């Protein structure tokens, strides 16, 4: 199969998958317990007429099939309706928060991949030694610790006790006006939440890398390289890692797909104005338009990331044939 044919086939599969996910997304919220109308009409301040007006505004009186068709059309045209909670367009609110989430998740993901890979490589090279033991233990410990707990500890210690980092937000209030100061201010605010996410996730990359490196290091071509006198560093990073990277690429691609979903607990703890805290709010108030939109966007990104992973995999590994 040529690459072109492979791409076309995958696109067709993607669309089918997307349709399935969208339908599931719709049905899940229809079946969920609790009535979103309590958000709007649970207040005793509204008259009956006002409640009826809001029901009409959200189309909640229409039959389910009609709402499904409307839902599909809206999702595909990026019209996510109005938030039940704020009465503002959901797409507007998402776009307001998306850059903050991509920044936080992107920085922590890149850092954790980079650090995790390096640690994993050396842990595999020094298997059984102190470095390996410490690397595995710390990876598992930080992975097991709840992110919100870690975040609160950092906030308390570094933010409050030592006063080294801010306690909330993405910027000082009010923010600096000059561009470089603004960038510096943003990085200063980013540090603790990114550190929290980094500590949580680097361990996973380290362990995966270690595992694939151990496999690669046992191959004969590695022995040959050693016999030829190639430096250990070159053996690790140029020969072994290249082959060990392949599973990592898939994982990394899928992880990038989850960039947009945010980190709910971390964003809450650090008052980071992103998609994660937005989702948390929506869960609390049964804000279904918001939840549907976030789940849909996340699904689309993961599907696209998966597709990208397949393509990259084929480009990186010459053994893969489409």
């Amino acid at each position, binding site marked *: 199969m040529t690459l072109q044919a492979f791409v076309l086939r995958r696109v067709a599969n993607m669309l089918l998958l997307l349709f399935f996910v969208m339908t599931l997304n719709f049905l899940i919220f229809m079946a969920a*317990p*609790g*009535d979103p*109308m*309590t958000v709007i*009409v*649970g*207040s*005793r*301040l509204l*008259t*009956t*007429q*006002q*409640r009826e*007006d*809001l029901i009409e*505004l959200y189309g909640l009186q229409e039959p389910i099939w009609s709402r499904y068709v409307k839902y599909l059309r809206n999702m595909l045209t990026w019209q996510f309706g*109005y*938030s039940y*909670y*704020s*009465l*503002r367009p959901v797409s507007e609110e998402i776009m*307001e*928060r998306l850059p*903050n989430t991509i920044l936080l998740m992107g920085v922590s993901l890149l850092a954790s991949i980079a650090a995790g890979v390096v640690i994993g490589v050396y842990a595999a090279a020094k298997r059984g030694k102190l470095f390996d033991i410490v690397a595995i233990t710390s990876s598992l410990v930080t992975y097991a610790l709840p992110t919100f707990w870690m975040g*609160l500890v950092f*906030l*308390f210690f570094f*933010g*409050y006790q030592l*006063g080294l980092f*801010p*306690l*909330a*937000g*993405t*910027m000082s*209030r*009010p*923010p600096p006006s000059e561009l470089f100061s603004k960038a510096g201010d943003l990085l200063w605010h980013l540090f603790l939440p990114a550190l929290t996410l980094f500590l949580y996730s680097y361990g996973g990359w380290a362990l995966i890398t270690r595992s694939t490196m151990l496999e690669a290091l046992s191959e004969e071509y590695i022995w040959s390289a050693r016999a030829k006198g190639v430096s250990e560093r070159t053996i690790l990073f140029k020969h072994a890692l290249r082959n060990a990277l392949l599973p990592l690429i898939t994982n990394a691609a899928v992880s990038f797909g989850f960039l947009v979903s945010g980190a709910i607990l971390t*964003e*809450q*703890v*650090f*008052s*980071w*104005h992103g998609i994660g*805290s937005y989702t948390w*709010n929506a869960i609390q108030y*049964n804000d279904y338009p918001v939840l549907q939109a976030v789940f849909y966007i996340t699904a689309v990104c993961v599907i696209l990331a998966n597709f990208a992973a397949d393509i990259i995999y084929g480009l990186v590994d010459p053994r893969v044939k489409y």
Partner: protein
Amino acid sequence: MILEPALVPGAEAIEWNGPRVDSLLMKIYGDPVAEGLALAANEIDIMDVPLTPEQVEEFQKNPNIVLKSFEDLGMAELDFNNQMWPTSDVNFRQAIAHLIDKNWIETDVLKGFGVSIDNPVPSVLGGWSNPNIKKYPYDPDAAKALLNEAGFTLGPDGLRIDPKTGKTLQPVVFYIRADDPQRTAIGERIRKEMEQLGIPVDARFAERAVCSEAVLKKYEYNIYTGGVGITADPDYLFWFYFSGMDIYPEPYGYNYLRIHNDDLDEALLKIHSGSALEDVRSAVFKAQEILAENAHVVPLYQRIGVKAYRKGWEGVVNGAGEGINTWVTFLNTHREEQEYGGEIRYGLSSDIENLNVLTTEWQTDLEVLYRIYDSLLIKNPVNLAEDIPWLATSWVMAPWTSPSGVPGLKITFNLVNNATWHDGVRFTSADVKFCIEYYQQGGRWAGYVSNVEKVDVPSDTVAVTYLNTTSYFALHWLGSMPIIPKHIWEKVSPADWQTYDPLREKTLIGTGPFRFVERKAGEYILLRANSEYFKRPPGKTLTIQEVSLPTLTAGEAQEIDVTLIDYTEAPVTAGTVTATIIDAEGKEVAKINLSHKGEGAYSASLAIEKSGEYTVEIKASYTSVAGTFTAAREFPLTVKEAFPMTTTILAIAIITVIVLVSYILIRRRRSKKAST
């Protein structure tokens, strides 16, 4: 644990003008722990939400933080479905009431952060609360006796018999809120008590949304651990308990307890429609007695909240039912060492969502909106029964009969004449009329104006409202709602008001003490003091501190000096100062601009040709972040006549002659001496 006694009316010294600060910075914290840390770290000055017990314990040790407690305007209650068997039986309900151990609730559940109550009109409402109602002390034996008396005898299997069917009683459906640990604990305890008495219970632990669907929408419950917010006026009794508010099978009726009691209805109608205070108070007392007697609902407890602020702030007013972040606090408060100026940093527990005053329901949104908009009158935060004139300086209530023959009220509001909207347009009675009519089309305030039949505006400062209700509380319905500007909202069509976003349209314009300046989503909202506020404190102004007027002689130029200071007693270096000289006939003879010489000192050269009595008018102005301030002072000035030239020449001549003659005489005498 109560940190200070409940409020004493009149204990707070409140000055009804402000704001004293220049700006209000509202910082958003998504996490209450982070907000608490921010207060301790001096990132904010006041928190908006009550503290957790752990925070109270920690902040009590912090000498830089002041804690104040208050009774919440809300209550937790045990709701009965009064139309579903067996909770439709009064004896059954009374028996359940006797199974509630309120001492245990106070000590073990609330742990000092609440008080148990017996009355749906708790004591925080002051004179509205009836102290003499039937109470239900914890007494399982009394409960047993009541059940037996009502025919719910114990069967051989230890379960109660249903007197209607003669068989074992069907399990009582009991919805217990799982998302509120206090309600969960109380519900669990009551369930156990009921089972110990042989009452089978179908306990359903569920979070709010599920409970709301079952209880508020479908009414498929017998008992529910409910909770309600109440208002300073007890007319909520009508909305919650009047039989006409039970709209079953329609969902979300106010009276979801489905109380149908003719005597109660009679009292509630008097509350809703009575005009005379004493009649209304008597009806409120009667309603409480009936509710208690029949155990239609069992009030459980009222939360005591504790709020905190940084030490060093004066003028913080701890309000009944709300705590320290009262409307008046933001008007009054200032740093101890600085009577005017500065900035309050106020923590908000969540971001704002909707600043459309007609549709918003969220407390954080109201925190912003109540700073921007004013109402006709406000409640004294330390004495909720006292009304303070605000945009309305006074009001008169008189009986009126509508054209359809319905007895009603005519309320005449006399308005201030010096209030302006933030964009400079003058506030008039036309705004009040527009606001009432606009609110009638829907939204949060529609219920407040639904009884208004018409509004007349005989002048710019008088608004006459005609209502088809005789309710005493109608004054508060109209008086407490935020007044919106006609010239802004008349452009928002009836089809658009629900989704209109004043933040996006940049039309957050009110008459309030603060103007909206800026918002960074998820980060902060910045408000600045309204320098043109009609209740601006007299001391928050520009001061012409010193004026040095020289002794002027006609035709002679001299320096005139003026020193300016602002309300923080700092020298004003960027002001504009003019001096106008007016003669005795009132005619302006000169006008000069003074230049700044440094340290707030302004001077210019002044020369007046003609001698006489004058008045010097010094006018100064300057613009700062807090707005434009002006000052003026007048001083008398006497310009002396210039010494005449002829007289001068004559004087010089005479002196010269005298000197010469003296010289000659002295010379002659010396010559004579020499020759002898």
